[in-house]
């Protein structure tokens, strides 16, 4: 079990980030109030689409950077996965 955890942890962490970006933003089409959905709501009020989505893109980058960094740290601490961050 431990060596399996070590083998699959990077793929799982990667998948988490993929869901974090692609999966949840699709939720906007059915009207969930997540990041993309809120951005669309605000932009339809003030017609600042470009500015709004630049900000949202930046927020997504920050969010995924935090997520993948903390997942890499957890992996290093718990499973001794030697992920090269930089």
């Amino acid at each position, binding site marked *: *079990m431990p*060596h*399996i*955890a070590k*083998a*699959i942890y990077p*793929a*799982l962490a990667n*998948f*988490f980030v993929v*869901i*974090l970006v*692609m*999966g*949840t*933003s*699709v*939720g906007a*089409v*059915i*009207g*969930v*109030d*997540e*990041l993309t*959905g*809120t*951005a669309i709501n*605000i932009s339809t009020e003030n017609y*600042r689409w470009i*500015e709004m989505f630049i*900000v*949202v893109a930046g*927020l997504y980058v920050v*969010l995924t950077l935090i*997520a993948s960094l903390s997942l890499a740290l957890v992996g290093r601490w718990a499973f001794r996965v030697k992920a090269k961050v930089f």
Partner: protein
Amino acid sequence: MLAHLAGEIPRFFTPQKLVLLLEAMGTTLLMTAIGCVLGFLLAFGIVFLRQTTGRLALPLRLAAVFYVEIFRRIPFLVVIYLVLFFIQAFVSDASLFAIAVIAICIYSTAYTADIIRGGFESVARQQVEAAAAMNFGRWQTW
């Protein structure tokens, strides 16, 4: 142009808008976390079903394979619409957040099951045989 844009910034970033965006960020993170953790746990069940042996467990094995192969071949957008309309057909006032979490859960179960199966198959066959030779059951081998 740039000076004009710079002048617009304070009007654009009102505090309530930022709070709204940060809350939305939290929602995004929460949806992902719930969906992925539930999906991970369910995926273990799927992998367990898929690795059963013997003829009696054949339907279970088939069901697990069908689940993974079907949901890996449907786009996430289609999955989320299917879940939305299926659930709204039965529960008319279901919250959209729950529906999105269920869709993410279904999707991540399929993908995570394949990731975990890949992990199990990466264990050398000799090690599994060694565990069997030492009279370990399937649970102990895991």
